[in-house]
C-alpha cells in the first residue's frame, strides 16, 4: 500500500481540491462517459485513497489513472488552482512502478532510451520515410524528407544580435523539419541569431506523462547542461514547451515560438502583412492553452500573416492525440479526433493552424482530404516570403 517512487503525488497538492466538481465538464473522458471515475475529481479521489492507505495501487487504479489524457483542461477550470498535471504524472509513475509488465518495459525503452539515441532516431526516420514512399505508413504524418534533414548543431542569422536557442526535440527534428525551418527563418527575420546546440536531447514529456520519471530526469539533466547558457530557448512544439517550462533550472527561459513572434510583431520587428482575404482556423493545443496559458499569440501571428482568423473549437475538448494516448485508448482518441475534425469543418476554413505536432497528426488523420494543417509560424513564414497560398506537402 502507498507510494514507492521518489516523486509521488503530494498531500499538499491533493489537499488543494475541495471537490467542487467545476473540472468535470471540461474533462474529455468525463464528457464522453458521464462517469465520475473518468473525471479529474474522481481521479483525485482515487489518488487520495491510495495516499491515505485505504486503497492499493492495483489494476483498477491503473485503469483510472491511464484513462486520463493529461490535457490539463481541468487546471484552467479549477478555481482552487489544483496542480493536476503534476499530481497525475506522479500517480502514473506509481502505476508503472507498482504494476510492472512486459509492455511497460518496451514502452520505457521507447519513450526514454530510444528518444534520446540519435542514431536510432535517424534510422527510424529514414525507415519511416521509405515506408511512406511505399504507401505503407499511416495517415496523419507529414512526408519525412529524404535524404534526411536535421537542424542539430546548426546556426543561422547575423553574427551579432540576440541569440535564440532553438529546441529541436527528438522525432520533431526529422518529422517536422519544415516547422523548425520556418521558425529559423522567422526568428532570423526578427533579428535573432538562431543556434541549435547539438548536445540537447528529447524534452522528456512523453516519458514523464507515461510515468517514467527517472528517464525524463536523465533527459532533463542533459538538456540543463546543453541549455544552461542560453538566453532564451524557443520551442515550436507546444507539448515539449509545456514540459520544459516546468524545469526548475532553465524553465523560466523557455518560450513558445508564437510568444516570441507575436512580441516581435507587436514591437514592429516583424511586419504585419497585407490581408489576403483567406480564412484560417486556429486550433488551441491543450499544452499551449492549459499547459502554458497561451491563447492570443497564435492568433496575432496568423492575423499578421494576412489571414482572417476563426476559432476552430475555442474552449473545446482535447483532440485526443495526447502523446501515446492514441495508442493506448484508440477508441476514445478517435472519438475525440472526429469531434475536433467536425468542429474544424464547421468553421468553413480549409487551412488549419496548430502549434503542436501531436494535434497536427491527429487533425490530419480525421480531416477529409483538402484540408491543410500547418504550424502558425509556417503560415507566417510563407506569407513573409510572399509565397501565397499554403498547400499540402
Amino acid at each position, binding site marked *: 500500500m502507498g507510494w514507492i517512487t521518489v516523486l509521488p503525488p503530494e498531500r499538499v497538492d491533493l489537499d488543494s481540491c*475541495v*471537490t467542487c*466538481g*467545476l473540472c468535470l*465538464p471540461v474533462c474529455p473522458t468525463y464528457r464522453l*462517459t458521464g*462517469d465520475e471515475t473518468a473525471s479529474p*475529481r474522481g481521479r483525485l479521489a482515487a489518488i487520495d485513497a491510495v495516499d491515505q492507505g485505504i*486503497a492499493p495501487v492495483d489494476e483498477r487504479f491503473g485503469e483510472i489513472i491511464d484513462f486520463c489524457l493529461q490535457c490539463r483542461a481541468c487546471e484552467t477550470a479549477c*478555481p482552487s488552482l489544483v496542480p493536476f498535471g503534476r499530481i497525475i504524472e506522479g500517480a502514473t509513475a506509481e502505476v508503472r512502478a507498482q504494476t510492472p509488465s512486459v509492455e511497460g518495459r518496451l514502452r520505457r525503452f521507447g519513450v526514454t532510451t530510444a528518444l534520446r539515441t540519435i542514431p536510432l532516431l535517424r534510422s527510424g526516420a529514414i525507415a519511416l520515410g521509405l515506408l511512406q514512399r511505399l504507401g505503407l505508413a499511416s495517415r496523419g504524418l507529414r512526408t519525412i524528407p529524404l535524404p534526411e534533414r536535421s537542424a542539430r548543431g546548426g546556426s543561422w542569422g547575423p553574427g551579432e544580435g540576440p541569440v535564440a536557442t532553438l529546441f529541436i526535440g527528438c522525432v520533431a527534428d526529422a518529422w517536422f523539419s519544415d516547422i523548425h525551418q520556418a521558425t529559423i527563418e522567422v526568428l532570423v527575420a526578427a533579428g535573432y541569431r538562431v543556434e541549435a546546440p547539438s548536445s540537447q536531447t528529447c524534452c522528456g514529456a512523453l516519458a514523464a506523462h507515461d510515468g517514467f520519471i527517472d528517464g525524463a530526469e536523465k533527459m532533463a539533466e542533459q538538456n540543463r547542461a546543453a541549455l544552461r547558457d542560453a538566453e532564451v530557448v524557443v520551442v515550436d512544439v507546444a507539448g515539449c514547451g509545456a514540459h520544459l517550462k516546468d524545469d526548475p533550472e532553465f524553465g523560466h527561459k523557455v518560450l513558445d515560438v508564437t510568444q516570441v513572434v507575436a512580441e516581435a510583431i507587436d514591437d514592429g520587428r516583424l511586419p504585419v502583412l497585407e490581408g489576403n482575404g483567406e480564412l484560417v482556423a486556429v486550433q488551441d493545443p491543450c499544452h499551449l492553452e492549459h499547459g502554458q496559458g497561451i491563447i492570443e499569440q497564435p492568433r496575432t501571428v496568423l492575423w499578421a500573416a494576412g489571414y482572417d482568423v476563426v476559432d476552430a473549437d475555442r474552449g473545446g475538448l482535447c483532440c485526443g492525440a495526447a502523446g501515446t494516448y492514441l495508442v493506448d485508448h484508440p477508441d476514445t482518441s478517435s472519438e475525440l479526433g472526429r469531434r475536433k475534425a467536425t468542429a474544424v469543418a464547421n468553421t468553413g476554413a480549409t487551412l488549419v493552424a496548430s502549434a503542436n505536432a501531436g494535434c497536427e497528426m491527429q487533425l490530419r488523420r480525421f480531416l477529409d482530404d483538402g484540408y491543410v494543417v500547418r504550424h502558425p509560424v509556417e503560415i507566417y513564414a510563407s506569407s513573409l516570403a510572399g509565397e501565397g497560398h499554403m498547400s499540402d506537402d
Partner: protein
Amino acid sequence: MTLIDELIALLGPERVRHHPLDLLVFSKDAGVTTGDVVAAVLPETAQEVAAVVRIARRYETPIVPRGAGTGLAGGAVPVSPGLLVVLTRLNEIHDVDEVGLTAWVGPGLINLDLSERLEPLGLHFAPDPSSQQACTIGGNVGTNAGGPHCLADGTTVAHIYAAEMVTATGEMVTVGSEAPDQPGLDLRAVVVGSEGTLGIVTRVLVRLTQNAPDVATLLIGFPTIEAAAAAVSGVIASGLIPAALEIMDQPMVKAVENFVHAGYPTAAGAVLLAEVTGTADTVASGVDVIRSVSETNDAIEIRVATDADERALLWKGRKGAFGAVAQAAPDYYLHDTVVPRTALVEVMTKIYEIGDRYELQMLNVFHAGDGNLHPLVAFDAKEPGMLDRVQEAATEMVRVSIDAGGSLSGEHGIGLEKRGLMNLVFSDIDLDAQARVREAFDDAGMMNPHKVLPEGSRCFDAKGVRL
C-alpha cells in the same frame, strides 16, 4: 444471481461500477459526507432506469439518484448501503418549441449546456446556480435550485412545466403537463425540490426564457459589508428589480481574484456584483439607479462591464467562489439560509461573531437580492474534532438566520446535512404531513432514504436500514 449480476446482465459491465475503488470514488458529492455505495450504474434510457429500480426493489436496496455530484448537502450520498443511479447519460434535448418556448430535456444535461445550445435561438434556461457549468438539470429539479438570476426570474420550480419520472415501483408517470393549466393537485411542484425521495426524474419539460436585448454588469467596491448590504436594500427599495445582486466579502474577493484576475478590488471590505437586463433604455436607467444608491452608501469603486467578455470574466469569479476556497483550506462547509433583506446586516454581523467565537476562518458570498446567505467556513477536516466544531458553528449560524425570520435553505437542498435542523422551521405536524406525502409515492422507503426529513418523522428510516 446477485444484485450486481442482474445489473450487469441489464447494462453490461462497463456501466456497472462496483470495484472497491470505484465505490470510494462515488461515495461523495461536493459536500463533506462520505456514504456507502453498493454499486453505481449508468443507465442511458428511462426504460433502463425503470428496470434498475425494479431490480433494486427486489433486492431491497435503497436507490440514490446522482447527476454531476456537485450538491453540497449530501443529497446524492447513500447513507445505508445504496445503489447510485447516475443519470449523466440521459442528457438529450428534444422537441425544442421556439414558439411555445419549451423543450424536453434529460436530467443528466448540464445546466449551462442547455443555455449554450439554445444561444443561436436567443433563448436560455433561467435558473443559473453557481455550479451551472457542471451541475445537471436533474439536480436542479431535485433541489429546486436557485442562482444569481433567480432574483428576477424565480427558482427552478417556475421553469419546469412537467416531469416524467420512474416511481419507486419502477413505473413511468408524468406529473404536470404541456398544457398551461391543470386541474387537481400540482404534483409537479411537489416533485420539484423532492431531492430524489419520490422517484427518479427521467426527463423534464423546461420553460425557456428569451435572452435580454441588453445587459450591464456592475462591480462595486464598498468599504464594509454593511455598506454593501445597505446598498442592496436601497436598490430594492427604489423599486428596481435587477437580474442579480451578489455580495462577496473581502476574504472571498481575494481568493476569487487570485483565480480569475478580473480586477476585483481586493482592498474593498465587500464587493457587490449587480446585473440589469432589458432594453437599452431600461438597462441605462437601472445602471443609474444602482450607481447613485451605491454612491450614497460610500462606494469606493464602480465599474460597469458592458461587453460580453468582461461580463463573463466577472461572473466566472462569482461562480468559481466556492471552489476558490481551497486556496484557504482543503475543506469547506456551508449552509444556504435565507433571511429577510432588512435583516441582512444584523445577521451577517452575528455570523461573523460566531465565526470569531469558534476561531474559524470565514468567507462570505451570497445572493443579496433575495437574502440567500452562504456563510462558508474553510477548514481542514483532518484536524481532530474540527468537523464537529465547524458543524456546531454552522448550526448556530442557521439559528440566527431563523431567529431573524429566515429559512433553513434557499436552494442547496436539505439532503443529509440539514435534515437534523428541519425541526427549527417545521412543526411535528408539518413534518408528519411531508412524510405522508413521501409514503404515498414510496411506501417501501426505497427512494433516497434518510434524506430531507429528520430521523423519526415517520417510519421510513427504519425501513431504509432493514438490509
